[in-house]
């Protein structure tokens, strides 16, 4: 029984791809949105096809905005390694790994979590760990017990995936009276 794990390199590549896609999409939107202004703008003093310089400047502005926004949200959970996966939201990042590293079908396993909070966000009040099979519309037969290890680290015990298929690990982070739900999908065979 294996779960479909990505290597840290793959995850990093996926993250880069996602950021690049967002960047080009937004810069293209800006380019089209500013078309009427460019249509009647004076030619570029640097030569080249009209609009390229403008497009480049739009892209640069967008990139700076994304990087700035990402920097505001970024936090690094205190759990790292090849078997660690990370869930992110605007306010939190949750790194987790299972013990054993390959989640066994039909046997109890534990999960170690590290939760971090983005700058300017409210401190975490509590964390709940659960899992469900979205296609089957049911969860686990067991309610995991969570113990705090300090420093934003937690240990959940008693999880058990009793069927093969797609499972969704759910971490609910309560902070400042609101609950944020972070999820990570896994294939269990």
């Amino acid at each position, binding site marked *: *029984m294996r779960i479909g794990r990505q290597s840290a390199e793959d995850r990093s590549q996926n993250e880069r791809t996602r950021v690049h896609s967002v960047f080009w999409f937004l810069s293209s939107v800006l380019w089209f949105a500013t078309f009427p202004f460019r249509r009647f703008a004076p030619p570029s003093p640097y030569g080249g096809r009209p609009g390229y310089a403008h497009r480049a400047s739009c892209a640069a502005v967008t990139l700076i905005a994304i990087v700035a926004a990402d920097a505001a949200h970024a936090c690094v959970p205190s759990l790292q390694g090849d078997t660690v996966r990370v869930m992110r939201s605007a306010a939190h990042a949750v790194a987790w790994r299972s013990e054993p590293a390959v989640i066994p*079908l*039909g046997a*109890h396993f534990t999960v170690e979590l590290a939760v971090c909070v983005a700058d300017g966000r409210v401190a975490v009040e509590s964390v709940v760990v659960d899992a469900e099979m979205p*296609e*089957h*519309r*049911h969860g*686990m*037969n*067991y*309610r*995991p*017990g969570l113990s705090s290890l300090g420093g934003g680290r937690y240990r959940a*015990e*008693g999880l*058990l995936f*009793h*069927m*093969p*298929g797609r499972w969704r690990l759910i971490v609910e982070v309560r902070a400042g009276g609101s609950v944020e739900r972070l999820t990570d999908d896994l294939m269990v*065979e």
Partner: protein
Amino acid sequence: MRRGFIMAVAAAMSCLPPVLSVAQPPPELSEAERRRILSHGPWPPPSPRDPSNRVSGQRAAIDLGERLFFDRRLSGGGNMACDWCHTPSLDWTDGFARGVGKEAVDRNTIALWNVGFQRWFAWDGGHDSLWSQSVRPMLDPREMSMTPARVAERVRTDGDLACRYERVFGQPPAFMDDDTVLVATGKALAAFQETLVSGRTPFDEFRDALARADNGAMARYPEAARRGLKIFVGKGNCSTCHVGPLFSNLEFADIGVPFFRPGGGVDPGRHDGIRRVRANGHNLLGRHNDDESGRAEVGTRRVELLHRNFGEFKVPSLRNVGRTAPYMHNGSLATLRDVVRHYSELNEDRLHADGERILKPLRLSPGEADDLIAFLSSLSDAGAPFRRRTSPADPACR
């Protein structure tokens, strides 16, 4: 002329085998199907050991458990032992739809094959260890109808049994309280039952041949069973619950079998089982659990009582399923064909609204039903009949 006729016949015969093989080609397996099939083995796995039972796997405990299993003095009337319902020659069940002890009970008697690999015991999982489950029928007034005090008295007053208890558990039963003697009896019975591991089957031979890509050995597996296996791991979705080498996920499911009791009322199944296991003084959260690591009790500590548990029953192992009729928690389906028909014509109205969403009527053709039955039948071993290792005529303990 005659030579020409013979040549024509010979040519026709030489064409015959390919023609037949074109008519019923062996189904090809996708990579996903191959992985799923391989996950049903290898068999047998290492012998089960129960960390909550300190005498699990010990030869002396197994022998003591075997003696107790067939000891009729452990029933109230002195006429019934465990083998009354779990008869070796009937694959450790009784062949009845519902078990019959001192009185008839509500559920089918589960065959004891591979019972040591289970996580929860009985159709509702009302026990979290085999030793705890082994105590229950002794005390049930409808089954063996004993009390802890009477079980302890029988053991203490039989010199040979008392000696064997001391040898296995380290102290004579005279120094144990009644409850401890009762639990010790359960642990010895469990040690014996853990040895009831079924043998290799035609499916296991096919599975292992697939693993080593031995086409010659794979070809010995009947084609009908192979087509049925493809349904089992494919469109049938059977292997979603009947997973792994044991063909069970060791959990519970509502599959639309009516759960009305014969005398009226309903059988709540797993919903009641969880409440019973929590209330049971012999559960793994109690003082009789020998596992000091704390791992054995995790399931009992973390199991959750859910509305959907109502009407759920154990997902049984399918090993030796062809020989352990009748089927379902109430024995309501007499044959494997009835079971396949149940899934083929599944009544979705009987399923919980918040239950499993993958259960759909399979709508199998008659040929597909035959193939699935052929596959299920290939899960039975051809093991030799059980032979007792102990006898009342064995030398006395001292």
